[in-house]
Every structure is written in C-alpha cells, then in structure tokens.
C-alpha cells in the first residue's frame, strides 16, 4: 500500500490542484476556498519535496498516465531538475497561502474570492504540469492552462488598466504558446513521437533537416516569449504591475521560472546542448539578449515610478541572468541558471509580497507614496530591504550565491565582458533598490496622510518566510547547490 502510494506521487502535484480548483468553484465560499488552496499547496509542496529526495538519491521516476507505456501514452517524468522546479513552484504557492487571505480581501470583492483561489489552483496545476510532464504536447496543454488562468488572474487587478494588461499578456502569451506548438509539431512530423525522452533519441537521425532547425527556433522563441526575454518582454511589466498583489508575487516567483525550465528542458534534454548550440548561433544570440535584458531591464527599473513596475522591470533584468547561464552551455553556467531560478523566485516573491503589503496599507503603489513608510511599517520595510539586498547580491543572501556561480561560470568560460555586464546590472540594482530603501527609511512621511499601520501578521509571516529562506539559502546553500549541480551535470551529459 505504501509502495503504491509512493508510486503514485508523481501524479499528485497535477491532480490535487486540478481537483481542488473545481472544488473551490463548487464551494463558492471565500474561507473554504482559501483553506482548500492552503491545504493543497502545502500537500503538493510536501509531495514535491518527497519527489526531490527520491530522485536525488535514486534515479529519475517515470509515471505512465493511464497505464500506457511512455512513447504512446503520456508520461510524467521526474528527474532532479524538474523535482527542483516543482519544489520551487509549490513552495512559493504554499508560502503565499496565508498572504492571499488578507491581500485578496483587500483587493477583490468578497463574492469573487473563491474564483481567485480556483484560478490560482489552476495556474498551479498548469505550472506543475509543465514541469513534471515528459510529453511535449502535454507540456503545451499545461502551459496554456497556466497561461489562461494567469490572464484571468491579472484581469482581476483593481485598476481598469489590468484588463488591458491581461489582454496584452494574452496576445503575447498565445503567440508564444503557438510558437511552441509549431515547434513541437515540426518535431512530431519529423519523428512521429511527442515523448521528450523519445524525441531526444530519435532527433539525431533527422537532426540535419531544416524542419528540425525550424522546430528548435520556434521552440526557443516561444519559450522566450513566455520567459519575457528581452525584447519579447513587453507583456511582463504591465502584467505584474496591475495584477492583484498576491498574483504578482506568485507569477513573478514561479511563471517565468517555469518558462526558463521549458527552455532548459528543450535545449538540453530534447535537442541536446551540442546540437542546439552547434546548429545555430543560439548561445551567442541568447547571451546577447540576456545582456540586453539585464541592462535594459535594470535601466527601466531605475526610472520606474511605481514600485510594482520597478520590481517587474527588475524581473526582466533577472531573467537575463538565468538565460545567460543557460546560454553558456557549460555545467557551471547551467548550475548558475538553475540556482538563480530558485533564488530569484524566492527574492521576487518576497519583494512582491512586501510591495503588496505596502499597497495593502497605502492603497497606492507609486514610489512617492512610500515616503517614510518604514516608521509605521518597520517589518514590511525591513523585509523589502532584506530581499532587495538579496536582489543586489549582497553576501549572506540567496542572490549572492547565484551571482557567485554565474560569475564563476563566466570567468571559467573566459567571458569577462559578460561578467562585466552582470556586475553593471547588479550595480544598477543597487540604485533602484536604494531608491526605494531611501524613500522608506530616510524621507519624512507626508503630513496630510494618516500614518499607516503595520500589515497583517499573516502577510508579514509569508513575506518574512520568504526573506528568511532567502537568508538561509545565502548562508547555507550547500545542499541546494549539490542538488542543482547534479541536475546540471545530468543535463549537460556529465556524471552527477
């Protein structure tokens, strides 16, 4: 019985949210829906941890949906990489549980709260599905499930501009998803299979055809749109700026990371790094775009006038770090990229949580409104500051660890100029985080506005959990780095 339970673990991260989402709709009760969300996200987090432990000490797990053997049926396949991403996504979802309660109560009409939780669960289901599936087409389906529900989530934002932001995201996201679908279709035409492991085996035989090259190009572009890689990032700043706070935090922490996972999975597992980087100047192009993203995103963040928008632009820049690591095509680079997926997820989650808590009290998110808020909201402000330092890459924070590995990988690959770009972008982060910190701590609060009070404990708890995880990762990253390294090593073909 226990063995059967463990054998069923891979299916649960997808099924539990999928079952819970309609349950929320049926319950139609904010608190019950919230409880459902919390329970499921926690359960899924636990399961993901179990899976990670299982694959880290053992071998990849294959789970056949419907009992059909993999090449024919849909396979769920867990290896170290996606178990790691599962932990990240479900962990963020679980931490946001307490946060959503107050945040949703403040930003959404009560009678629609259940819808919010249903959509969050659907998004979670989609993101986890993308991560865990071993079938390329199935990946597309989960991608669309998560995308559609996140469009709807963004449209729930308080300002009417949220609608346009959601629409723009829908247009870009659909183009991205369709590109991915085209790429997958081309591979399918050439190989007759959709199973990713199977694809990896069959592609070399037809690798030299234009169709496969085109497939690679379409998939990379599609994933890049979902990833918001410069210059395909246009949807992200508006989307994150106008979404409800909890949604911004959730999507910023998870959605782009999962898109990065898709990019890594296709480049390294399906096509193989040798082919992907050998056939087209893919590494060079990605590195160039990554640098452009780091610099442009940081610059835009410096000139942003709204804190959520600032954070969103910073995400554009941080995605550049991840892609840069991917583009290096070395185990060290990939290690850095995967590490930064986790670390940036935790950091951005914390920052958006803090921004949401500020918004919760101030009802505004423009920078000017933050003046002097630290006095009334010391815990929120301190959380923002701590996470901001991590974003900059100050030692003893998670951000430092990933930056360390990225720079080491760049030096190892003798890419000094790229390292310089990373450093410049980090310094730009000092400026935009510094702006917010100075406003919070050193500006006097306006006299005409009643002094706000500290955010609710539940919101603070979630925010500080992320901040502490952040610091914990910064101080003791060895186990995480071990896991990431073994994931990167198996992807790049080296021994674990």
């Amino acid at each position, binding site marked *: 019985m226990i063995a059967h339970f463990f054998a069923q673990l891979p299916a649960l991260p997808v099924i539990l949210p999928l079952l819970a989402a309609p349950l929320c709709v049926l319950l139609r009760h904010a608190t019950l829906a919230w409880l459902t969300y919390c329970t499921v996200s926690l359960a899924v987090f636990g399961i993901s941890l179990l899976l990670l432990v299982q694959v880290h000490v053992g071998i990849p797990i294959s789970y056949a949906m419907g009992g059909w053997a993999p090449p024919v049926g849909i396979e769920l396949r867990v290896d170290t990489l996606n178990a790691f991403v599962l932990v990240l996504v479900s962990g963020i979802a679980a931490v946001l549980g307490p946060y959503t309660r107050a945040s949703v109560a403040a930003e959404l009409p009560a009678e629609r709260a259940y819808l919010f939780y249903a959509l969050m669960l659907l998004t979670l289901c989609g993101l986890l599905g993308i991560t865990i599936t071993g079938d390329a087409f199935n990946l597309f389906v989960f991608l669309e499930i998560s995308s559609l529900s996140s469009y709807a989530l963004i449209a729930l934002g308080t300002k009417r501009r949220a609608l346009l932001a959601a629409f723009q995201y829908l247009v870009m996201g659909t183009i991205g998803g369709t590109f991915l679908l085209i790429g997958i279709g081309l591979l399918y035409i050439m190989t007759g299979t959709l199973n990713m492991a199977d694809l990896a085996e069959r592609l070399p035989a037809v690798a030299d055809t234009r169709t496969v090259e085109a497939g690679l190009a379409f998939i990379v572009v599609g994933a890049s749109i979902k990833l918001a890689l410069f210059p395909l990032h246009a949807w992200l700043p508006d989307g994150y700026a106008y979404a409800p706070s909890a949604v911004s935090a959730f999507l910023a922490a998870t959605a782009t990371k999962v898109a990065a996972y898709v990019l890594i999975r296709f480049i390294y597992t399906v096509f193989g790094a040798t082919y992907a980087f050998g056939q087209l100047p893919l590494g060079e192009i990605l590195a160039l775009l990554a640098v452009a993203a780091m610099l442009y995103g940081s610059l835009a963040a410096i000139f942003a006038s709204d804190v959520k928008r600032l954070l969103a632009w910073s995400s554009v820049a941080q995605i550049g770090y991840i892609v840069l690591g991917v583009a290096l095509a070395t185990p060290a680079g990939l290690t850095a990229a995967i590490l930064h997926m986790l670390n940036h997820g935790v950091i951005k989650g914390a920052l958006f949580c803090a921004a949401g808590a500020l918004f919760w009290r101030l009802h505004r998110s423009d920078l000017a409104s933050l003046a002097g808020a630290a006095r009334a909201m010391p815990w929120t402000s301190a959380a923002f500051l701590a996470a901001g330092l991590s974003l900059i*890459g100050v*030692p003893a924070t998670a951000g430092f660890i990933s930056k360390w590995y990225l720079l080491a990988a760049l030096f190892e690959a003798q890419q000094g100029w790229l390292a310089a770009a990373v450093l410049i972008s980090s310094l730009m982060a000092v400026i935009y985080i510094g702006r917010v910190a100075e406003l919070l701590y050193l500006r006097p609060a306006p006299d005409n506005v009643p002094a706000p009070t500290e955010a609710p404990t539940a919101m603070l708890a979630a925010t500080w959990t992320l901040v502490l995880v952040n610091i914990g990762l910064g*101080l003791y990253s060895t186990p995480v780095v*071990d896991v990431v390294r073994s994931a990167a090593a198996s992807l790049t073909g080296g021994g674990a």
Partner: protein
Amino acid sequence: MTIALPWLMALPAAGALGVMALGRWPNLRDGLSVVTALLLFAAACSWLGPVLDGARPAVTLIPILPGLSLSLALEPLGLLFALVASGLWIVTAIYAIGYMRGNDEHNQTRFFACFALALAAAMGIALAGNLLTLFLFYEMLTLSTYPLVAHKGNDDARAGGRTYLGVLLTTSIGLLLPAIILTWVVAGTLDFTPGGILQGHIAPAAAAGLFALYLFGTGKAALMPFHRWLPAAMVAPTPVSALLHAVAVVKAGVFAVLKITVYVFGIDFAAAGDFTTPMMWVAAFTILAASVVALTRDNLKARLAYSTIGQLAYIVLGATLANGMAIAGGATHIVMHAFGKITLFFCAGAIYTAVHRTRVSELDGLGRVMPFTMGAFLVASLSIIGLPPLGGAWSKWALMVGAADAGQLLMIAVLAISSLLNIVYLLDIPARAFFRPGTDLPAGRQEAPLACVVPLCVTAAGSVVLFFVGGHILQLLAPVTGS
C-alpha cells in the same frame, strides 16, 4: 582564558539587538553600548597572549557553498585590527553619548544599534578566515554604516549617503567581488594561507591586474580615484566620522589590503613577481595629491578627511612595497593613525559642540578657550606627522626602511615630502589656535562636555603611550612579516 572567536562577532551583534530593545530607556541603552564595547575589548585582549605564543585558532561556521565556508581564523594582523577597533569603540561610544545628547540628535537608537552592528562587521573582517567571509563582513560594514552617514536625513545627508554607498558598493561589487571569484576560479580556494594561494596559479602580468582589482575594489582604502566617498561622508555626525576614519571603516579597507597582499598573494610571490609596482605608484600619487588637496581645504573635517586619504595610502604603499618591514610599517600605521585621527575628529566635534565652528580659518585664538582640546589636537598632529616621542614615528620609520629594502628610493622621497605637507596642513591649526588672536570668542574657558573632552584626552595620551609599545606591536607582527 580566551573567548571563542564567534563571540567576538556575536557580542556587538547582540549589543545591537539589545540597543534596539532598550530604545525606550536611553540611559540603559547607552550604558549597554559602553558595556558591550568594554566586554568586546576584554575579549579581544584575551587572545593577545595566546597569539603572541603562536596560537592560530580557526573556526568553520557554515559551508555557504560547497567547498567554501563562513570561517574565522585569528592571526596577528587580524588581532591587531580587532584590538584597535574594539579599544577605540569604548572611547567612541562614550564620546558619542556626549555628542548625540549634546546636539539633541534624533533617532539615537538606530544610531547606536547601527554603530554596534558596524563593530560586529569589523570584527568579522578582522577574524575572516577566507576572502568570502571577508567580503561578507566588508559589505555588512558598508550597509550598517550607511544609515549612520545619512543619519541627519536631510538632502545633504542623503546625497552624502548616496555617494558613500555608491562608491563603496560599486567598487566592492564591481571590482572586489570579481577579483575574489577570479581567485576562486584560478586557485580553487579562498582561504587566507601564510605564503599566499596564488603563486603558481597565475602569471605575474595577470597578477598585476588582479592586484589592481583587489586594491581598487577595496574602496574603503580610499585609493584615488575611488576616494570621493570619504569627504562626502563628512555630513555624518562626528562620532560617525571617528568610526569611519579611525575605528572601523577605512581601517577595515587597508587591513583588507594588507591581509590580501600577505595571505592571498604572499609577500614572496609579490616580491618575486614584481606585479605590485603599478599600484605602488597609485599609492604614492594618492599620498601626495591628498596632502595637497588637504592644504586647500578650509573646512576642518574636509581637511581631516583628505588627510586620512593620504595616510591610508601610506598603508597601501606599505603593502605594495611587498617586504616584511614595509608591511609591518603599514600595519603599525593602522594603529598609529587610528589613535591620531580619532583624536583629531574628537577635537573637531568638541569644537563644534562647544563653539559651533567648522572652518579652520575660524579657529584663531581658540587655544585659550579650549586648551585641553587644542592641546590634544597638537599631540595627535605630531603623531601623524611622525615625530617622536609619539606613536606615528614607528610606522613612518618602518615604512622608510621598507622602501629602502625594496630599493624604492623615490618612495622615501615621497614619504619625506608628504611629511612636510602634513606639517603644513596639520600644524597650521594648533598654531592658529594658540598664536593668533581670536574674534568673537567667549572670554573664559569653554570646553565641550566632559564626555567629549575625556575621550579625546585619552586617545591623545594613547598616541604617546604607543610610542613606548611600538616595539611590542612589531613583535606581534613578526610572524606575519617574517622579520
């Protein structure tokens, strides 16, 4: 009996927490500051004997990364810095209580908490067992002192704070961090190891580049052109200036330079590879240029700030000369300059508190009004100039010998010329105070509060005492310098 190394950091950190907790009871809070400082100094002193006897305690705290831990290790150089920082914290704490209360400053709790935090960071730097640990606490020091620099919160203070943070973080993230990571990539370790870790892993030409990255990256050492933050930080209250110039910040910078030279590159490798010469010229240029600029400054704190820049470059020069005597001279100068400069800043603060004057040209005749203050000023100036029987004589002498050992006779000339410039811009001030007639001065004596005057007298006396213990300092450093 010795105190475990982590406690040396935990003590001021706990002090910071205590200060925050006691924010509502100012007397308790300020008392805690002083007590913590005393305890810390005592703890540091407990290690003096064992280290002199050759003990080299080391502790590994957490493996931050695989193969890279947060680790502490005590050696003579670090102990010296720890002793200076913790010792001067005592007087600075007392002085700060007087100053902050005397000037009725706001946000005193935040001030004292950050002060204690800065000391914790300084202890971390002193005890760092590897470059990663050093970098961690170096950044912590920058961040914990930023609120102190921008303490006043007005536009000037914020602008000063921005420059402070901007220069220090730009150099550390932009230059020091890549230098460390390069070292890691090249050498595979970051541990401070006697004899260095780079020899055999890197060509001398590349080493010259790396060395430059380290020295410029250590922005706290204020080598030109990365010195702007120090004058900009003048906006801070005087106790902060003391902290910056004497207790922790700049000293952490030059300490890091010495430590990196000795334990990362290794004196032998540096001497043999001859890759330090370019940076030696940068240091020499900084010495002279800073002295000239100091001459032109009428604002007392600005003049002292440029003086500090020049004096720090002495220490860097010692590192770049890359021989035992020069290193010893540089290390000794950390102590000597600390005592001298803290006295000078205490005096500047006392003058501001007592008669609200900030410009050199306004100090005429002040000697009669503030005899203790100006007397201390004179003593400290003479020490920094390097005249016996004051502590500064030891370090100047050692540096000159080091320059001669290295065959850099031009550097002896640089040291000589800069001493003359020191005389001109430093002695100018007590000379005015004692020998020129003052205007609009109070009739009788009007010293600053006792909490201000006593510390500055103590540190001035310290400068004298140091002349007599200078030999012991060199003895403590002997295992490092190999002489």
